[in-house]
């Protein structure tokens, strides 16, 4: 029973992690929390719905399109909105407010186009379970977990082992100096939005497979935000650890206490954390959290 809950928790945490790393990457570069990040996942999930259910394409093609959709909307938000606000020299608070606005706009747009109805992929999902001892583990959870793991390993590799990743870390450390040393800062930021958006797309499709696709599904981004605060905003490994922890906590609360108290526990944890250890587990930067 516990093993079953743990696997589910890690699998849910993995989806949080795909989004939480995006929060962290963007926060580390631009010092603001991108509140529309959850909606990037939602857009990705709907793009996959269009490809699979309306166009009748194979599910893998639809999933790939969903990932591309997440990347595209993320990139578009950066180019049409965030970059302009930055080049106006506006305070970071403006970026955050714009992100909240975008989050609402995207949610409402999805509502208008697709209605508020819950949709599921026209694809026979592997809903079977594997029995280990007296635990039943969902095949879907295991698939989701494996995909997440591969994607996150690739992300960490890109950030730590490539020159692009070095540029990203340099900008996070001192964007002014990076610019003067010949790093194309705006281009690198746009590529990070592409990267973070495609991870959000993966999260959106996986989340949609597990819980269906609906306009407000992007609210899962709030959980990912909590996860990135647990880990320490701005830290990619911190975001992953925080997300897995939160996934396990939520699953255990749902299983052993009450599923209606799940969100209460998560948000209470956020508040306690901000009071007790605002720098998070991998504490990067204490100031200016939200």
């Amino acid at each position, binding site marked *: 029973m516990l093993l079953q809950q743990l696997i589910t928790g890690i699998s849910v945490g993995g989806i949080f992690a795909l989004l939480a790393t995006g929060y962290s990457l963007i926060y580390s570069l631009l010092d603001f929390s991108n509140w529309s990040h959850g909606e990037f996942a939602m857009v990705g999930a709907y793009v996959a719905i269009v490809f699979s259910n309306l166009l009748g394409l194979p599910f893998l093609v639809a999933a790939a399109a969903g990932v591309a959709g997440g990347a595209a909307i993320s990139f578009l938000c950066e180019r049409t909105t965030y970059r302009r606000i930055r080049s106006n020299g506006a305070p970071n608070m403006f970026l955050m407010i714009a992100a909240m606005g975008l989050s609402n706009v995207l949610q409402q747009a999805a509502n208008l186009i697709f209605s508020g109805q819950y949709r599921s992929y026209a694809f026979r999902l592997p809903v079977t379970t594997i029995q280990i001892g007296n635990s039943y583990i969902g095949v879907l959870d295991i698939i989701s977990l494996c995909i997440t793991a591969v994607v996150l390993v690739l992300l960490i590799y890109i950030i730590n082992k490539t*020159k692009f990743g070095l540029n990203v*870390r340099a900008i996070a450390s*001192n964007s*002014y100096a990076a610019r*003067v040393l010949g790093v194309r800062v705006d281009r690198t930021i746009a590529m990070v939005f592409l990267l973070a958006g495609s991870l959000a797309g993966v999260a959106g499709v996986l989340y949609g497979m597990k819980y269906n696709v609906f306009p407000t599904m992007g609210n899962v981004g709030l959980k990912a935000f909590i996860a990135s605060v647990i880990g320490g905003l701005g830290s990619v490994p911190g975001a992953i650890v925080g997300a897995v922890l939160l996934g396990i906590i939520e699953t255990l609360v749902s299983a052993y206490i009450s599923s209606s108290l799940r969100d209460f526990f998560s948000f209470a944890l956020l508040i306690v954390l901000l009071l007790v250890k605002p720098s998070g587990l991998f504490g990067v930067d204490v100031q200016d959290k939200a």
Partner: protein
Amino acid sequence: MTNTNSPVLEMQNVDKHFGGVHAINDFSVKIERGKIHGLIGPNGAGKTTIFNNITGIYAPDSGKIFFMENDITKTTPHKVAQLGIGRTFQNIRLFSNLSVVDNVIIASNMDAKYNMPQAIFKTAKYKKLEAYLREEAMDLLGFVGLSDKANERASSLPYGHQRKLEIARAMALKPKLLLLDEPAAGMNAEESLDLVQFVKEIKSHFDITILMIEHHMDVVTNLCDHCTVLNFGKTIAVGTPAEIKSNPEVIKAYLGGDE
């Protein structure tokens, strides 16, 4: 096209305002190849603003800036860097949580030479480029005497070493012009003398031209061929260090200042 006698840097009648403050007022300068030019003046005289105009942090309101005969008046910072202008900062701006050698590799201008798939799959070409850049960065660190610190965090270095690392990092751009913003700030007389020696070595080894902001007159006298003295954005004197030291305008500005 590049004439060897043409100046490395030429600024013509550059003006810059910030709100009501006239930060630079009709500033002109010509720096010949292989020279060290000093920018002197009390705090707030507009010296760092001139550096920011050259490196494209912001464009001047009017006037022109030429680097090796290219008009760089409105060129963006990364382009200016890639054209060959390196810079250090008054308050050191290292990538403090990165390693010493990574600080240098960042400035190595390799971005144009690879693409993402090559980087992710580490093609042979990419690996070769990477190894070559690391070697080059290590050579630079060797030159400034920081080889043994290559894998330490930049923030763990003592102040004097951080200054040297910042210069090594600027040199990784293979600049033709190096801008030094108060390299001797916070140094005592002995350390300043060390720095003078260090700058001379860099200049002769890499065959570069230098524009430096400096307050320490002994450093200026020892290094600079020519100087421009600024006060409240205006040029009040131009000449050799000996000439400006006896200039009554300069003496007046400095007696009123904090030096």
